[in-house]
């Protein structure tokens, strides 16, 4: 209603002009510039009033916004809680480790549907509870952003499997119809399921055949066993029964056949408290992990191995009255090592073992003959319960490559094999593959071979898979998925079944794969499916090991060896596998590369190992870059590493590097190292890893810094590692531990009379130095990966490390002081003598983590009490409290504290798994992620102690010995690390603390560490214990 105006605003109102009346209807007579404002055309030349408006709005908006809580990302509660899944409580599944060809039982720890940790299955003697470094690391490949997310046709994602399958079946059909042959290339296949699927596939496409391809060959041994006993198998070696082990280059604790099992067995006779301690003699060119553990290690030219074997045979035959081989040569090594080995072996007849790495059939034949002579078959060697590690035959694969080159093979299916990378002639196979009409790869992540394949049908990761495998005759391992497929992948056997028209269909709520695997298991293994799946393995009983007789005569083999070793080659080039990276299948896994090599302590690279003498001869120094060519194959640039212990005249290059994988991250894993597989030579039907001719090494540069975590290698005569011989130990078990320091402490003792008192014991005799604990700890405790440059800066973050020291043999006993070693080296150089002391080295490994000292030097110096002592004897870190003065790290005599120099998560400078959401799924939610600027260190896996205590409390019982587990001890294949409660007199730990060999590191500082070390005992005759310091 309009009021009558007494006053008017202007003449317009007085006149009641229509435009004015119209404008009067709006609240604001001039209208608001909303359109302009929202279209962004208006310039905010705000006047005073606008400013107040904006200001008021902003203040109100900011205050409202700050009232709102930041939304929590990714934390979605269960709408319907799955049965058995309680957030915060882990589930454990028994499954199979897909790292080795053959199958390995593991336990998978799953948190809220995410597998976060693998352990060996301790119920099964196939693993004995241990797991190697590579196996530990393999969980990360599940969360690799680099994986195939969908099936691909010509490098293009196809989200729909049906479309993909229809194209493949059409192609397969046309090839089969035209009579073109199809080849299925698998790794050594022990999977019953895959075998069944392949046979179905061959039924459908009769022109299909399987060919086995492995990057590493054991065919020399297979053929030798076939010739000797008519059985083309790899026998089971029983290191737990072998009182004398003589190994010719076989790195059975590191990389040879089944190292985790062998480590566990080997350890059983290595503990001097028992009556028997085995004697281990290693002949080898390079210094292997196994060699570093030997009682007596003899450098040997591996190209001459056959001659030494013949010599050993003859020496044994002479003792046993068997017929000698009429041999022209009787090769002997320095100090009569062969004769001594023969002596030892003969004394332990039937309880000894001779093994050889050689892939030469003739050498393996002589090894067989030696073991027959010693009566080891049926005792330490078991041909009946054989291992199914390798069925690779080079001749068959060569034939396949030739057929492919000729064009007679039209379709090739690579089931998780990557020959394009590891085949000795990549060019030959890539050229040949171009001729095939259809190339399919089931690679999980892009590799060299899948790059050549028109069709990629990505296989599931082993943690997403159903399977039944037979790693050893009569022993089965069951695999069950522990996570829903992360990507749109399908197990290879399902793909094969689909393409052969037997596509699996789910029945009820069970997947087709489940029903199929169950039926295979029922038909071949056991009908007690639930139990088998629960245990993760099944044994149909061990057959008695028979004692075979040797069919073949070794005289032919001897003749071949002698003719091929007439001249001593100038240089042996030995291609070997490194612990961790192994055959290169895990190139995209940062954990295996951040793990320092157990011997060289180098991370990330491969390199040319060379003996000191050889390096001086060739005028090479550590860090020089060389161009290596063998025959026509060239590695353009490789750093040099001078390796103590390496035999004169030999050089070594590790296989498994130089992968050309399109990496997801711009990090150090990209183009890592150089590929040495082209140097592998096919000789007499087997791959040889020793090259002797046409080797040229040319220096092209210098100053390359290898990323080593340890750069000082001698112990400087310090009382850090105590060592004695078995003889000395038998006379006096305390041997090195008599001297005790008379210490006076300024500090009050802690009262541990109630509750727990945690401690640890490490048996230096059991520790092989394999590094499994390092990786296990990193996974358990979310230790970041820092990359090559940071390792060079000496900033690796590992909470546990393995110190490795050499001592150098000389006339004056073993030298451990840099000064003496260098003096001797100089003296030799001057005299033009070879550096023999560099070849005859003794090696010790010492795992080192926080010692949880009772009088911890770190605790007293922290200004803010960020590191404190718990009532249970733990030295604890409070990350929130830490301000990062690093004083604790300086004052730690063991140098086990690690500082967060950078932010290692969500940082593009450290583009590893902590930098992407998928990789972060492996993070252990029980362990805090550390921020930049705080100190961290071993916590004795306090999260596991706590959970064990809670479990015991819930079950209303006392904590039992072994309830609380630490990651390093849990994974150790040789059981070298024991964790437990010192307040429990019955605990294994308490007993080890009372062991005569037990001592503490740097006792004289009176830090009262809670880690005990047990003296290393070597079963050799020479005595070289050093007297304890004054």
């Amino acid at each position, binding site marked *: 209603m309009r009021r009558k105006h007494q006053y008017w605003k202007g003449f317009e109102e007085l006149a009641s002009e229509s435009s004015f009346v119209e404008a009067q209807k709006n609240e604001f007579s001039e209208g608001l510039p909303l359109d302009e404002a929202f279209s962004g055309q208006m310039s905010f030349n705000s006047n005073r009033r606008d400013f107040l408006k904006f200001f008021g709005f902003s203040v109100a908006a900011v205050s409202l916004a700050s009232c709102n809580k930041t939304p929590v990302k990714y934390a979605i509660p269960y709408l319907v809680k799955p049965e058995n899944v309680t957030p915060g409580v882990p589930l454990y599944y028994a499954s199979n480790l897909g790292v080795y060809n053959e199958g390995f039982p593991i336990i998978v720890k799953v948190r809220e549907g995410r597998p976060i940790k693998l352990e060996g299955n301790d119920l099964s003697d196939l693993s004995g509870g241990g797991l190697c470094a590579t196996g530990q690391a393999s969980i990360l490949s599940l969360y690799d952003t680099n994986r195939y997310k969908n099936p691909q046709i010509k490098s293009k994602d196809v989200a729909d499997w049906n479309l993909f399958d229809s194209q493949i079946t059409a192609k397969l059909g046309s090839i089969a119809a035209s009579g073109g042959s199809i080849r299925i290339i698998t790794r050594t296949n022990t999977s019953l399921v895959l075998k069944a699927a392949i046979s179905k596939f061959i039924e459908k496409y009769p022109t299909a055949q399987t060919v086995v391809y492995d990057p590493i060959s054991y065919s020399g041994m297979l053929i030798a066993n076939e010739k000797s006993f008519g059985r083309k198998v790899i026998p089971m070696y029983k290191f737990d029964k072998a009182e004398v082990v003589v190994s010719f280059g076989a790195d059975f604790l590191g990389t040879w056949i089944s190292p985790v099992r062998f480590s566990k067995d080997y350890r059983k006779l290595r503990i001097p408290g028992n009556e028997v301690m085995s004697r281990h003699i290693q002949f080898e060119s390079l210094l292997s992990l196994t060699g570093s553990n030997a009682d007596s290690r003899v450098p040997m030219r591996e190209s001459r191995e056959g001659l030494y074997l013949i010599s050993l045979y003859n020496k044994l035959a002479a003792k046993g009255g068997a017929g000698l081989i009429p041999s022209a040569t009787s090769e002997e090594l320095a100090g009569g090592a062969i004769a001594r080995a023969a002596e030892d072996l003969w004394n332990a007849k039937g309880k000894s073992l001779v093994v050889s790495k050689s892939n030469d059939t003739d050498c393996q034949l002589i090894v067989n003959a030696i073991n027959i002579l010693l009566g080891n078959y049926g005792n330490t060697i078991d041909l009946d319960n054989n291992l199914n590690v390798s069925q690779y035959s080079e001749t068959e694969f060569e034939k396949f490559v030739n057929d492919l080159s000729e064009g007679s093979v039209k379709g090739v299916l690579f089931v998780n094999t990557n020959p394009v990378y590891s085949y000795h002639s990549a060019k030959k196979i890539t050229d040949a593959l171009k001729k095939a009409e259809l190339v399919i790869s089931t690679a999980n992540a892009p590799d060299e071979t899948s790059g050549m394949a028109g069709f990629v049908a990505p296989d599931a990761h082993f943690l997403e898979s159903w399977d039944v495998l037979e790693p050893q005759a009569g022993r089965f391992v069951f695999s069950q998925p522990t996570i829903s497929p992360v990507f749109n992948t399908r197990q290879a056997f399902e793909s094969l079944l689909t393409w052969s028209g037997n596509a699996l269909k789910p029945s009820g709520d069970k997947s087709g794969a489940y029903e199929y695997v169950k039926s295979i298991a029922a038909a071949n293994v056991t009908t007690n499916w639930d139990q088998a799946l629960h245990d993760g393995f099944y044994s149909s009983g061990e057959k008695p090991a028979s004692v075979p007789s040797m069919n073949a005569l070794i005289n032919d083999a001897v003749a071949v060896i002698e003719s091929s070793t007439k001249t001593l080659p100038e240089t042996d080039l030995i291609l070997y596998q490194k612990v961790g990276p192994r055959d290169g299948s895990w190139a995209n896994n940062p954990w295996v590369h951040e793990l320092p090599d157990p011997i060289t302590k180098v991370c990330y690279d491969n390199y040319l190992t060379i003996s000191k003498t050889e390096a001086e001869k060739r005028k090479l120094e550590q860090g020089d870059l060389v161009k290596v060519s063998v025959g026509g194959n060239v590695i353009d640039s490789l750093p040099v590493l001078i390796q103590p212990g390496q035999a004169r005249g030999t050089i070594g290059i590790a296989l498994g590097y130089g992968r050309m994988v399109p990496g997801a991250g711009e990090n150090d894993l990209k183009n890592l190292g150089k590929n040495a597989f082209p140097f592998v030579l096919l000789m007499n039907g087997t791959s040889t890893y020793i090259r002797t001719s046409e080797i040229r090494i040319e220096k092209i540069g210098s100053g390359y810094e290898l990323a080593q975590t*340890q*750069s*000082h*290698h*001698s*112990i*400087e*005569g*310090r009382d*850090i590692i105590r060592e004695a011989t078995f003889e000395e130990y038998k006379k006096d078990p305390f041997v090195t531990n008599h001297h005790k320091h008379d210490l006076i402490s300024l500090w009050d003792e802690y009262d541990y009379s109630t509750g727990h008192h945690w401690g640890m014991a490490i048996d230096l005799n059991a520790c092989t130095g394999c590094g499994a604990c390092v990786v296990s700890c990193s996974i358990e405790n979310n230790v970041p990966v820092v990359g090559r440059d*940071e390792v060079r*800066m*000496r*900033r*690796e973050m590992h909470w546990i*490390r393995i*110190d*490795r*020291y050499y001592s150098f043999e000389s006339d004056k006993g073993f030298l451990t002081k840099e000064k003496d070693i260098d003096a001797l080296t100089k003296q030799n150089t001057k005299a033009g003598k070879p550096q023999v002391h560099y070849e005859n080295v003794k090696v010790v490994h*010492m795992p*080192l983590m926080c010692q949880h000292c009772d009088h911890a*030097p770190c605790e*007293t*110096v*922290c*200004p*803010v*009490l*960020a590191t404190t002592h718990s009532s249970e004897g733990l030295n604890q870190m409070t990350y929130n*409290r*830490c*301000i*990062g*003065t*690093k*004083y604790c*790290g*300086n*004052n730690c*005599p*063991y*140098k086990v*504290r*690690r*500082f*967060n*120099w*950078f*932010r290692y998560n969500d940082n593009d400078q450290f583009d590893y798994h902590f930098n992407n959401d998928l990789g972060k799924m492996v993070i252990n939610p029980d362990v805090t992620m550390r*921020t*930049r*600027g*705080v*100190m961290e260190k071993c916590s004795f896996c306090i999260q596991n102690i706590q959970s064990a205590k809670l479990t015991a409390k819930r079950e209303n019982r006392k904590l039992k010995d072994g309830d609380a587990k630490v990651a390093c001890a849990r994974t150790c294949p040789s059981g070298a690390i024991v964790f437990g409660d010192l307040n429990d007199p019955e605990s294994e730990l308490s007993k080890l603390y009372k062991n005569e060999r037990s001592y503490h590191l*740097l006792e004289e*500082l009176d*830090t009262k560490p809670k880690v005990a070390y047990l003296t290393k005992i070597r079963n050799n005759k020479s005595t070289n214990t050093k007297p304890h*310091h*004054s």
Partner: protein
Amino acid sequence: MFEAPIRQPLILGDKKFADVSNEICSPIENKPTKAWWFGFTLSFVCLMALVITLFWTVWTGIGTWGINKSVMWGWDITNFVFWIGIGHAGTLISAILLLFRQKWRLSINRSAEAMTIFAVMCAAIFPLFHMGRVWVGPYWALPLPNAFGSLWVNFNSPLLWDVFAISTYFSVSLLFWYLGLIPDIATIRDRAKTKARKFWYGIFAMGWNGSARTWHRYEVVSLILAGISTPLVLSVHTIVSMDFATSVIPGWHTTIFPPYFVAGAIFSGFGMVLTLLVIARSTMKLENYITIGHLEAMTKIVMLTGSMVGLAYITEFFIAWYSGVEYEQYAFLNRATGPYWWAYATMMFCNLVAPQVFWFKWCRTTPWFIFFMSIIVNIGMWFERFVIIVTSLHRDYLPSSWVMYGPTWVEVGMFVGTMGLFFTFFFLFSKFLPVINMAEVKVILKSKE
């Protein structure tokens, strides 16, 4: 007034009271010279290096430095101890020499005290920014009352003692310096020709009126502060040395450290005082106030303390051998013959050998040579700290953890930056405040008036 027959007067040039005021106030009351501008600009540029490197450190992480898993303290703590040491001469001159009634100190104590304050500021930067989390450092490191019960600071930690020692030292030094400045500031106020000048100097003069009462208070407070400062000369570097002495690291774990560090601090402090004063007296035309006699007195102290430090070096070696502890023995042998031998050799030469030239009168009385020697002393003392910190850490107990250490550009930049900070402040000081205590110098003037 009694006139000692054999002594030269402390202030030369037959100055009158007015001359003192005129001459010393002249840089303050006139436009700065070109030399001043040049020096100031250069220092300021260096100061910017500090800003950049500190920013980069805090932004990216301590990983931008060269330190590693074994050598967790490098240039940072080396520089910290170096700067703290520099400061000591000021306190010694103003406190101990005051108590000993050493009148020659009067023309140099002002600048020496200023140097102390600036040096402590430079020093404080390092322990602050060497922290991984400087943003929470002061909160946790200060004994603030909190609700965490027993969770407080750790009084066992020498680093905490440092916090107290250095903050006390800084406060007392600042107070002492400022107290001495008050009469002079009042003089400038009274001479001021502009309002702003009168206002600002008036504020800082705190109402000084030159009455007998104010002078009395001044003298008393001076004496009290001198009394408080005197133990600080000994305590601060003693406590700094305890950062090392209380540890278990061979080469650090040494009971000789407190006296050895104090002697070293005075040595390096006088080195720096000489560096500054030799320049100041020539550029600011103060030869009559800071005479050759002053320089000579200081060189004698340099020689004495240098020899004391040298004795400490030798004693350490002897004790290492005598202790029979293999780790100690190795640590010291490694210092002298290991990979860092050059640092050790530099230290030995600069601190023990070089100052012996001051036995010769010419060396004690030739300003350019004294300047040269003062630089040598500064270098030597920097290396002493480097040797102690780095060579002890880089090879301690377990040879597996032996490493080498070298600084990155960030650490070098920080050191250059603190030099910049130090000289920037010093230039500002010389521009805005009297570098010589006018009031007290007038006391020792042998005026004919």
